[in-house]
Structure formats: C-alpha cells, structure tokens
C-alpha cells in the first residue's frame, strides 16, 4: 500500500513536472505588431504646436496651436526615411521613426523598440493635425498633451 501510494505520488509528480515543463518551455506567442498606421510623410510640414494638461483645455488649445503658426514647428523628412524632430529638452534635431506597439499604439521615437522612454505616443492623426504625449512620465507631466495643427490648412 505504502509502495503503491509512493509510486502514485511519483507518477503525479512526474505528470505535474511534465505539465510544468510544458508551461515553461512553451514559447509565449509573439505579439502581432502591425505596421504603423501613420506614415512619416503625414508628419512632414509646418505645424502650430500647443500643449495642455487638462482635457477640458483641449478645444481652445487646438485653436491656440493654429494661432502659433508664426512660430511653426517644422518637421522635415529624415535621410533614412524618418522625420527630423526634437526629443524632449533636446535642442538638436534627431531622426525619429514611427513604430507600432503591440498594444496597437503608434509611437514616434528613435529607431528601436516601440514604447521606450524617448518615444511619444501619437494619436488623433489626420491630414491636418496630430496629438502626442511622451511615454516618459516626467516628460508627460511637464509637457502634457501636445497638439500639432498644420499651418496653412484649409478651414
């Protein structure tokens, strides 16, 4: 009886180990990363840039962004297919690329993995406007949500 119990326990243990091994060795399914839904060409141009921290300020911030086209934020095409923009607190231009995150979010940042600290999320994009918010919480807290409105767009 004792032997039978011990053998049973061993068998269950082996079975459990097999399951455990199966769980461990089974590779996690790779995230399906779609191509970014935005192209860098969509970002090229002159933009009025404004920011807000409270969602209730968004409508007037959009208007203010348009009013800032006398001091436009200029985005040019980069030599490697990206766009030339500024990182947070960096007065030198960097070439940034669009990156699709596994969460369906499109990121804009240096080449590499999506969603890193130097990236910003990009949203609400159409031909004449887009919105960004920094992934880095400190930058996001300081700069808030940034609205880009294309200068010279049709009313």
């Amino acid at each position, binding site marked *: 009886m004792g032997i039978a119990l011990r053998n049973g326990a061993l068998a269950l243990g082996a079975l459990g180990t097999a399951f455990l091994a199966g769980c461990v060795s089974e590779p996690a399914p790779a995230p399906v990363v779609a191509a970014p839904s935005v192209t860098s060409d969509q970002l090229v141009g002159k933009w*009025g*840039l*404004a*920011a*807000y*921290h*409270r969602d209730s*300020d968004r409508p*007037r*911030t959009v208007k*203010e*962004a348009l*009013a*800032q086209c006398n*001091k436009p*934020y200029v985005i040019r095409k980069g030599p490697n297919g990206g766009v030339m923009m*500024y*990182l*947070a*607190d*960096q*007065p030198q231009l960097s070439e940034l690329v669009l990156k699709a995150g596994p969460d369906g979010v499109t990121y804009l940042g240096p080449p590499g993995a999506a969603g890193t600290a130097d990236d910003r999320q990009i949203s609400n994009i159409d031909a004449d406007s887009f919105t960004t918010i920094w992934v880095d919480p*400190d930058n996001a*807290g*300081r*700069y*808030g949500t*940034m609205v880009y409105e294309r200068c010279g767009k049709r009313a």
Partner: protein
Amino acid sequence: MRVRLGYFARATAATALAAAYFLPGVFATAQQVDMNAVDQPGYQPTPDEEQLSGAYERQEVFFRTTEAPGTIIIDTKGRFLYLVQPNNRALRYGIGVGRDGFQWSGLQKVSRKQEWPDWRPPPEMIERQPYLPRFMAGGPGNPMGARAMYLGQTVYRIHGTNQPQTIGHAVSSGCFRLVNADVSDLYDRVSVGTKVVIKQAVAL
C-alpha cells in the same frame, strides 16, 4: 527650502543665462514676458517645495507708510511685496523680481485678474529651446502659476510660479512672482483697480 533644478533647467540654464531677452513694446503680450533660465514648463512642485520659510514666508509685519490700506507696495531690492493694512501693518510676501537690467519702478493699478493664466514662451526662448510648445494652457505646472494680476497696460504682472526656489531672487524679465499659495492669497485680497507702487527699495 530645497533647491531643485530638474533636467530641463540643467539642460538649458547655461545657454539661457547667457541669452537675456526682453519683449517690451506693443507686440509683446503679457503672457510672453516672464520666463527665465530656470523655469520648467510643466513642472509641478511638491507642497514641501512650495512652503517658504524665514523672511519670505507670508507674514504680517510692522509697516509705516502714507499709502492707504489695500495698496500693494513692491520692494524690489528686498524681494518683498507688501499689502498695506490699517494701523501701520502690512502683509508681507516673498517674491522673485526682474534680473539685472529688467527691474523697473513706477505706479500702476491692477487692470485685470486671471486664474491659471496661459503661458506663451517668447520667440527668443523658442529659438533656444525649439522643442517647447508655443502655447501651454494654464494649469498646474504652468510657469505662470495659479493666478495673475496684470499691471496697468504694461506687459508686466504679479503672478504665481511653478519654481518656488526662485522666490527671493532676481530672475524674471520684469514680472513679480510669488509661490502659488501666496499669489492665490493675494489675488483674493485685491481687486481690479488696486494701486500698485513698484519701488527699488522701501524705507520702513
């Protein structure tokens, strides 16, 4: 009070300190005026950072003047703003003032009051720091702070700040800054039309 210079300030202070700017004249809006080397748009100070101590803490003091109660008197050299009270008393607030070359004297009145004023960095600042938004809606973290009181038709004002460590220093482009709790306190005590006397120094 702990002095905090964040990444933004460290990254920009060297160039900003060397590049003084000024926007007098009819084209400068009030929001454009007061910005300096250590401002950090979006930075939200902690309550500890906003708590002033010593002479710059808001307090009632003996103050002899011929000005009527309710008058604001600014002592640029002493870095104090006085709100005259009856019986030779005044409420005294610690302030930040214009840096060298940006200080001024005169007689003004509060022409407008604004809660959570917006901020528009001047073109010179955009040139140095082109990553900045050209407009930032008023709110916590805005360099203009919680309240603003505009001085006559000038581009100057008394306003709050998100940089409490600048109180007691000559840092601005001519505006007078208080910590947000103080500017809110002052805002609630004064009305449009309040007389404001800006002096280089005040003899007590």
